[in-house]
């Protein structure tokens, strides 16, 4: 786990480049990291801005998990690499039916659940304030602001403020918009995530395999939009081209067979110890 994390940090640092500032009044510079997917990087003019605001949205409530997966992927791959904490601010309206990240699921997704901090305010105003405060803090890796629909207080001004905060602090801020429509915002990119049938599972052909999503780049500071099929690689903590044939040599830990069935042959030499009764 730690070894993998180190290699990914080294890999990300290699790709990190300084871009010239985009405006005359810009004090802080935008840093960007490439996706390592040539077509996508070309659209993004070299890579994703790391110290900026991004938006990930899904149309339906049941798409929330894949949108959350993409947002967490962005946070892990493009978040501040010398910090590890991920802040997750939840709009009270969104917390009603969406569920919460599951620690075991996060761990399998390549994200350390111990690094997650959740903020659950009572009002949207407080949620906005919390996201704003978190975006200012340079000790965080990324801030995910989960919001439901298109609430009025979260407008152009609010997103612009988050964008500026992110640029100053170097934290990746990601708006996770659940069942929301397209809306003008100051975000560097806006992604629309849709579900796609999973890839083949080399170990079990009838089961769900490697997860894939269709990501539509709806808004881009560099102008061009497009659509890609991406798949998240939790071992390298990086996105991959989902259409490419991925050969995994990695063995998945299988689910145990249930009782009252012919059992699989027991490994020889397995030691089972029971706890002492006293």
């Amino acid at each position: 786990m730690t070894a993998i994390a180190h290699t990914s940090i080294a890999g990300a640092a290699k790709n990190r480049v300084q871009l010239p500032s985009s405006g005359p009044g810009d004090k802080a510079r935008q840093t960007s990291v490439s996706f390592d997917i040539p077509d996508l990087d070309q659209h993004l003019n070299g890579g994703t801005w790391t110290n900026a605001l991004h938006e990930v949205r899904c149309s339906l409530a049941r798409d929330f998990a894949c949108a959350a997966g993409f947002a967490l992927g962005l946070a892990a791959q493009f978040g501040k690499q010398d910090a590890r904490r991920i802040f997750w601010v939840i709009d009270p309206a969104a917390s009603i039916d969406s569920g919460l990240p599951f620690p075991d699921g996060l761990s399998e997704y390549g994200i350390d659940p111990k690094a997650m901090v959740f903020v659950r305010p009572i009002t949207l105003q407080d949620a906005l304030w919390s996201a704003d405060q978190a975006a200012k803090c340079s000790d965080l890796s990324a801030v995910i602001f989960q919001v439901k629909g298109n609430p009025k207080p979260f407008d152009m001004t609010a997103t612009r403020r988050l964008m500026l905060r992110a640029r100053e602090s170097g934290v990746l801020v990601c708006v996770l918009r659940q069942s929301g429509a397209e809306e003008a915002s100051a975000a560097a990119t806006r992604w629309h995530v849709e579900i796609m049938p999973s890839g083949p599972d080399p170990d079990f052909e009838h089961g769900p395999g490697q997860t894939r999503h269709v990501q539509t780049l709806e808004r881009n500071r560099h102008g061009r939009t497009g659509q890609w099929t991406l798949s998240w690689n939790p071992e390298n903590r990086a996105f991959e081209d989902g259409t490419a044939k991925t050969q995994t040599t990695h063995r998945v830990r299988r689910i145990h067979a249930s009782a009252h069935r012919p059992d699989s042959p027991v490994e020889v030499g397995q030691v089972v110890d029971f706890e002492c009764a006293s």
Partner: protein
Amino acid sequence: MKWGKSWILSARPENPPIAVTDTEKNAVRIVAHEAHAARFGLFNGQSLSDARALVPDLECHARDRTAERKLLGSLAAWCERYTPLVALDGEDSLFMDVTGCTHLFGGEASFIADIETRLTAQGFTVRTCLADTAGAAWAMARHGTGRIIARDQHAQAISGLPLAALRLDAVLVNSLGRVGFKTIGCIAGLPRAPLAARFGTHLLDRLDQASGRQDEIISPLMPVAELASEKRFADPIVHEDDIKRCIGLLAGNIIALLERRDLGVRTCEVKLFRVDGEVLSLSVHAANPLRDANRIAALFHERLARLHTDLDAGFGFDILRLNILQADPFNGGQHDLVERKDAGDSYSALIDRLGARLGTDRVLQFSFADSHIPERRFTLVPVSGRDGKTDPDQVTLPAPARTPTRPLILLERPEPIDAVAQVPDSPPSRFRWRKVLYEIARSEGPERIACEWWRDGRASLSRDYFRVEDTQGYRFWLFRYGLYDRETTRPDWYMHGLFS
């Protein structure tokens, strides 16, 4: 009461008197009445029917003991302006340990006068007494006339008071009276052994407590703060900016004391004493020990910002007190000269700021438990309650996997679904969740998670979890609750999580 606390002050001669009634000795009787009601012939203990015969339009209220206790509690909180050691005593009195406090008010006489003036202004009828022992003070306040008993004079002062002044029950006082003991002085000089043999040691205990031969410990309502700093105003302050500035000053005062003790603040509160007797208490909690006046003050700014509209200044606050409730050894004293990190920008400052504004129970992180049941595997606990420990839990988390076996999102509670599935243990072929029908294309399972019989009992059901993918590609984590034919004949299906 509908007139507020000070209704006694504005005399209501044109109106009928007010009385409070309660059931005593099988009759509804008056237990308290307005001062001027005596003119109508009313007295405490009178039955309500007699009182009604005298004053037909008497205004009666049933006694509300809960409200009385609450009132006494708020009064005790207000009395903390005099001393931190305030204890409730019975239904209608307070003990205050004022050792070392009276000189702050200009001596004992003006101390007592201050209490009486302020409480009378709030509409209370007060009887106060200051003495060396709690027992003597109680006796004099209830049964005597003296306000201040001089040092070492209490034994003589209370000797003329009746025996009931020793906080004895009525039966004991009666039986003593039958023998001829009417006053405290009667028994003070008697041989102790026969007295104890006949009337019990309780009598001697009370006598010793009143005369100071035995210590009496009062238990204060609030824990005494480790450190406190306060500011009194001749002219009450109202504006939020003034309050903020004052909190900053108080925090500045306390830093030197903290440095001397090598401590940092973890929990502190500001008490705002309103002139009309309300006490507002704001407390904040820091994730790590703090020793920076600006940061302490900033936490209270957030806390005040949260109150904002609820902050009812009324006629203003005349005392502001900063109490340090919890302080821990301070270890973050060394600043890195090379790293130009702003202290106010760091992670713990953020946690404190969010906790102060939103409440510490709104800033959460995972805490793990040793359980196989998914929803019992973790809980969300406040970050600031962990006392700086980041990874206290020993838990084995699964390694990253391309085909996950656990969902990324877990629903807060499993939601029932209508599923069509073959018995005994096939995955569902289609199901309806939140009014949408899903056709299943691929599935894997079951993964059986048995109930925790040591918690749920032996009759509870096992769960068979399935990872399923529908024709569009949505991936879900479902379970069948109960094993077909072995635990239940009609197992229910539940949706528990969503894969990314």
